């Protein structure tokens, strides 16, 4: 009988044989191939440049740590650019989380049939390049601009001097990256079943407790991904400083740009870029692993 069954089982081809590709591996296929072809090569190139002779174009033909030596030279002040960029990124993440959360919450729970319209209102302006939108703020804040001009027309002495300051840069970053926090967050909050909030309230939990114990953890995928995106974008920001900030702060992205352009020092630019990637990914992944989504959501 054992023999018979084994024999029969070979005649049935319902049982998949051969190499079993797990559904996860299969689903990841297109992305992995894309990144393998489209990202691995540039990554290698940049790495090769980072270790090439300074100010040369000798990638893959020279190897030196000179670029890193320059960057880590105590006399070099480029670390301040890193520090500014990371600080801005962190501030952007924190402030945007606070700014966007009530809106995301409202979109999901309060605005009812208006929610779709309100969220689409946040979308329209995004079809305008961020440079142009930032320049709109210049027109608003500048002397004899909309704010100053309007105040003067109303008989006041004019608007406050906000433009071309580090604060203006932060403001610009909050403005430009708001959607990158808002939309993921809204998706995340939409994932919290109403039942659970009811249950928590019924068990005596107040607003804050419900928020901390139920809504926040269950909306975490959205919030974390929103934070991740805004952090990464904030760390690479440059236009805000150039347009609104009058370069009152030099961000690391600008240093990298200068290295590639005015300085024609690709190896230095590559080394800076690699260090930025290491810092950003180090920070992001550390935080992400502390807040492991799989664990938070009870997947594992």
């Amino acid at each position, binding site marked *: 009988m054992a023999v018979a069954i084994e024999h029969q089982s070979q005649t049935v081809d319902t049982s998949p044989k051969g190499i079993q590709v797990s559904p996860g591996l299969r689903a990841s296929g297109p992305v992995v191939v894309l990144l393998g072809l489209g990202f691995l090569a540039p990554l290698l190139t940049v790495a090769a440049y980072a270790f090439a002779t300074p100010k040369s174009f000798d990638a893959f033909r020279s190897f030196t740590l000179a670029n890193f030596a320059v960057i880590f030279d105590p006399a070099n002040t480029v670390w301040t650019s890193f520090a500014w960029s990371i600080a801005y990124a962190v501030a952007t993440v924190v402030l945007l989380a606070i700014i966007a959360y009530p809106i995301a919450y409202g979109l999901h729970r309060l605005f009812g049939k208006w929610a779709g319209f309100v969220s689409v209102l946040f979308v329209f302006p995004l079809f305008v390049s961020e440079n142009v939108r930032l320049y709109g703020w210049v027109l608003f804040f500048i002397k004899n601009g909309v704010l100053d001009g309007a105040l003067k027309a109303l008989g006041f002495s004019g608007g406050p001097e906000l433009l071309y300051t580090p604060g203006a840069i932060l403001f610009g970053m909050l403005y430009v990256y708001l959607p990158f926090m808002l939309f993921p967050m809204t998706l995340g909050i939409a994932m919290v*079943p109403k039942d*659970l909030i*009811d249950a928590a309230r*019924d*068990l005596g939990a107040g607003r804050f*407790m419900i928020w901390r114990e139920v809504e926040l*953890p269950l909306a975490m995928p959205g919030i974390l991904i929103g934070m991740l995106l805004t952090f990464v974008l904030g760390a690479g920001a440059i236009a805000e400083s150039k347009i609104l900030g009058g370069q009152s702060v030099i961000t690391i992205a600008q240093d990298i740009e200068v290295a590639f352009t005015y300085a024609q020092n690709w190896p230095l630019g590559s080394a800076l870029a690699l260090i930025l990637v290491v810092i950003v990914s180090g920070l992001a992944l550390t935080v992400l692993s502390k807040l492991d989504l799989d664990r938070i959501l009870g997947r594992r």
Partner: protein
Amino acid sequence: MTLAVTSSAIAAEPLASAVPQAKPVLQLVGVRKVFGEFAAVDGVNVDFKEGEFVSIVGPSGSGKTTLLRMLAGMEGPSEGYITLRGNLINDVPADKRPTCLVFQSLALFPHKTVGENIEFPLKVRKMPPAERKARALELMRMVRLPESYYGKNVMRCSGGEKQRVALARAFAYDPDVLFFDEPLSALDYKLKKALEKELKDLHRVSGKTFVYITHSLEEAMVMSDRVGVMSRGKLVQIGTPEEIYTKPANRFVAEFFGEVNSFEVRRGADGWKAADGKALVVSGLPEGVSDAATVIVRPETMRFVPTGAAVDNAIQGTIYNEYSLGSRMQYQVHAGERIYLVEAPRGGAVSAGDAVTIGWDAADAIVVGD
């Protein structure tokens, strides 16, 4: 005490009209809940007394869950008034009510372990972690969950395990009034029995008020001080189990507690008569019943009449079918155009195909109005 339930919403002076003798903990007056066009709860008036154990039964979709959700504060009534110890609480949110609901859908926190779920209400009231854990373990023992489940992902639990976590979580909260929405439906017989006992003990010891939805009539009968029966959004009867069983308010209630034998009857000059003209003996004349009524005889009061024995009402028939109900058997007896149900202990002398006389005593007949 069977409460006369009026189903119309009371419009003006709502609270003055229903002054209860014993102060009720919860009072519903003309409560309605409408979803779109449809009234899921349609004019319910009822008092729940302090320390009472009330079961609510009723067909699927009759509005039981909706009623409980309104009592717990998850949903506001579309019409009517809910008062807690005399205070109107229509708009008081769930966290401000001394009540707790064990959800039919359980509503467990999927991102928390079994222990964390149970400890949630304790965390809310800032009990120190060690104490919390001790209490959680105690409650887990009570619902028969092994201690090793404390750290288990609650989504990995079996259906019955989840249900017990939900129960333990509500016990942890320990409010004055507990609402249960089919809390034992996913449990096996033994466990159900054990937890029924725990619930009953808890109720007795704590003096809390329990409102309990169940589909198990046995549960409703064994555990409750009163049983309420819902139908199409209305509370059609509420009374002690005995009352509900022996004096159902109408045919719906009578039939709801199990398959019954029923006869349309009319009162003639010579007493009650069945539709087919056969005279029936029923005990007394119930009040408030018109000349047309329905006589109900439960399968367990219907019995096989040994040849020659006396019985108030007798019918000749043939056993058509028999089923085992565990410790008892149910027989379908064919007589005339109809099939009658007779329930008798296992091991009786009759079996399918036998010609038998069945009958019932006048005292066992139930007369209802529709």
